[in-house]
């Protein structure tokens, strides 16, 4: 697999570190009532057999966190973007 880092260009798989589903959002409230939201955020995943938005870290390159849109059945990569708004840091 090769990931086209928006900063470094297309690079080999082993330069990157995988984190997981990028669509889960960290809750902002500490209200005990939000427990389910926290549990979903930390533990539960859709894991669809198709397009998957996921976090990768270009750990051997520019250290940007990326959102890669990838078909996890074919490994085809559809899009790669910085996870942080535009600039990595």
């Amino acid at each position: 697999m090769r990931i086209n880092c928006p900063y470094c260009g297309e690079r080999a798989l082993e330069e990157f570190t995988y984190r997981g589903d990028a669509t889960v959002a960290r809750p902002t409230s500490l209200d005990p009532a939000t427990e389910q939201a926290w549990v979903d955020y930390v533990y539960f995943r859709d894991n669809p057999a198709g397009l998957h938005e996921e976090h990768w870290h270009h750990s051997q390159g520019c250290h940007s966190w990326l959102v890669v849109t990838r078909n996890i059945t074919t490994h085809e990569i559809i899009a790669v973007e910085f996870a942080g708004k535009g600039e990595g840091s």
Partner: protein
Amino acid sequence: MSDRTLRSISALAGIAAPGRYGKTEGEPGVIISELAGLGLATVACRKGQAAALSAKVKQAYGVDLPASSHVAQGPKAKFIGYGPGQWLAVSESLANETLAGDLMAKLEGLASVSDQSGGRTVLRISGPRARDVLAKGLPIDLDSRAFPLGSAATSAISHIGVQLWQADDTRSYDIAIFRSLTESFWRWLTASAAEFGYEVAPAE
């Protein structure tokens, strides 16, 4: 009190003796030399200061900060992009820690600067087979169409993180590696260069 002062030593001390190694027939395919005493510092743009920083760097160092992983060569220092809003500044004239000091003074409030001059070993790898040696570890296409003069890259060779840029239009490359990994890198480099025959030049 010069006797109290600390002597700087290269991580290659005792490892890389100048001389000719590997295959001995013919011209050496690879020439390896250490670039010692360079000023090295990382420069990271403060939030919202991109424009101001570029302007300041232009004015102070006479270069346009590259927006991607390229080298911008200025009279006093070169700036090498290694990540969004991040550059490695390299200088011969502003040697060692002086570069970081200079940058901190000039870029105050615009960028976060960290001295790295003590923590890297920088090697220049040249000679007709330089690319072939690098190909044995570097997963990056160094063909001039893919990696023209002025290109830079951060990657890994033999499980060792490297920062690499093309030094000049001859096929020679400068590689910065973490100081603590110098010996391991050297083992890979010399094993890979042996079949071409290599020469270790005295440090510059």
